[in-house]
Each structure stands twice: as structure tokens, then as C-alpha cells.
């Protein structure tokens, strides 16, 4: 979890100019860090590339938009890291 968080915080800091010390496991990507959907595409691309996965962003956004999942479940960094760890584990099997 910690290394996933460090990697993702580094990606966010390098793609969005947000100081890395402002990025915490409790940060909401959109609400706290004010990352817009376009900037999040860059972040998703880097996550896909670094971890060798495909973040199912389309499905996540659809679930958030239809209210079946809270945005915090995907876009608070602690939860985002857990989702990515799950995707990495699934990709490794």
C-alpha cells in the first residue's frame, strides 16, 4: 500500500504541479486536490503504464455518476491505491 501510494503521489505531483507534501492517503483526487477529468486522464495513463494494468476508469465514472458507488470509494487516494493493488494482483494471476 505504501509503495503504491508513493508511486501514485509521485505521478500526481509530476503531472499536476501539486506539491507532493499536500498529497495524503486521505486526499480526494477531485475534491481536495482539484484535479479535473482531463488531468486525471494523464494520471491514469501513467498509472496504467507504471503498473501494467488498465484502470477501468470508464466503469468507475459510470458507477459514480449513476450513484451506485461513492466517488470516495475510487478517488480518495487510500481507496484508489487499494483498487490498484487489486488490479495488479488480478493481472499477476
Amino acid at each position: 500500500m505504501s509503495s503504491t501510494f508513493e508511486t501514485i503521489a509521485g505521478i500526481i505531483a509530476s503531472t499536476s504541479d501539486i506539491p507532493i507534501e499536500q498529497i495524503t492517503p486521505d486526499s480526494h483526487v477531485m475534491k481536495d486536490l482539484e484535479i479535473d477529468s482531463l488531468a486525471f486522464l494523464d494520471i491514469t495513463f501513467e498509472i496504467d503504464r507504471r503498473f501494467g494494468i488498465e484502470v477501468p476508469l470508464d466503469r468507475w465514472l459510470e458507477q459514480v455518476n449513476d450513484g451506485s458507488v461513492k466517488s470516495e470509494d475510487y478517488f480518495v487516494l487510500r481507496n484508489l491505491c487499494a483498487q490498484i493493488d487489486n488490479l495488479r494482483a488480478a493481472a499477476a494471476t
Partner: protein
Amino acid sequence: MLLEKFQMLDRIDGFNPERSLLTASATVPKHSPVFEGHFPGHALMPGVLLLETMAQASGYLLMALDGFARMPFFANVKAANFRAFVLPGDELAIEAERDHAGSGFAVMSAQIRRGGQRVCDAQMTFRLVPFPAAALENHVRAEGQRLGFFGPAQAR
């Protein structure tokens, strides 16, 4: 090319789904109202229209890979380089390649060559969304047909 209608590609020369690669051709028109302003006495193909040409080649590649099911919208451009002047009458070879297929987006690289010399290149990101209007989908499909999709070009 019909610059006033943003019709930037003349034909698809090749489509390789295994390599996620498309090649296309276009000839810059010798006369266009665009050149009256860009520039008087020194007609040049505008860099933004070369970028649009690369974007259209990338877009048609993405649509072809996706069975024309979704519309790619230009979201981001990085590292666009315009390396040489492009002039009225120039014959251009455009190449687009998908570097990364994400969920609902794709990262592309494209370049344009003239007589074997690379004149511009760019990295671009596209969002892939359902067609927002039937008229747009019909237009894009008709353009795809004009360019050679839905025909022999797809197998090349």
C-alpha cells in the same frame, strides 16, 4: 484536403489493427482562402491544421479499431513539433499509431512526412465516448467510407 471544411485526409492507404497503425495521404490544396491570411505573399499550411490532420488520422485509427462504435474527441496534445514549412501543393503522408489503450481514452502518436522527410509530429490523447448525435455518427461514417474504410483499405 478541403481546409475550409476541415476535411484533412484524402484517403486511407493502410490500416494494421495488429500494430494499431494507420497510414493516410493528403495533398495540400494549391488555393484556399486560408492562405489569404496565412500568410499574404507567403502561403504556408498552418501548424494547427497539420495538428488537426494528425488528429484526424489518429481519430480514424481509433474508430477503425473500435468498429466505429465511439467518437474520439481530442483531449490533449503534448510535444507537437513543426519541423519544416508545408506549402500549397505539397503531398503528405500521415502515420498514426496507438501508444496506449486506456479505459475510455487512448494515447496516440502521429507524424506527417513529405517526400520521406518528417515535417511534424505530436503525441495526443483522445477521449472515447458514445456518439453524441446521430448526424455526427452519420457524417463520420460517410467520411470513413470516402477515405476507404468499409472497403479494401481495411484489409491492408
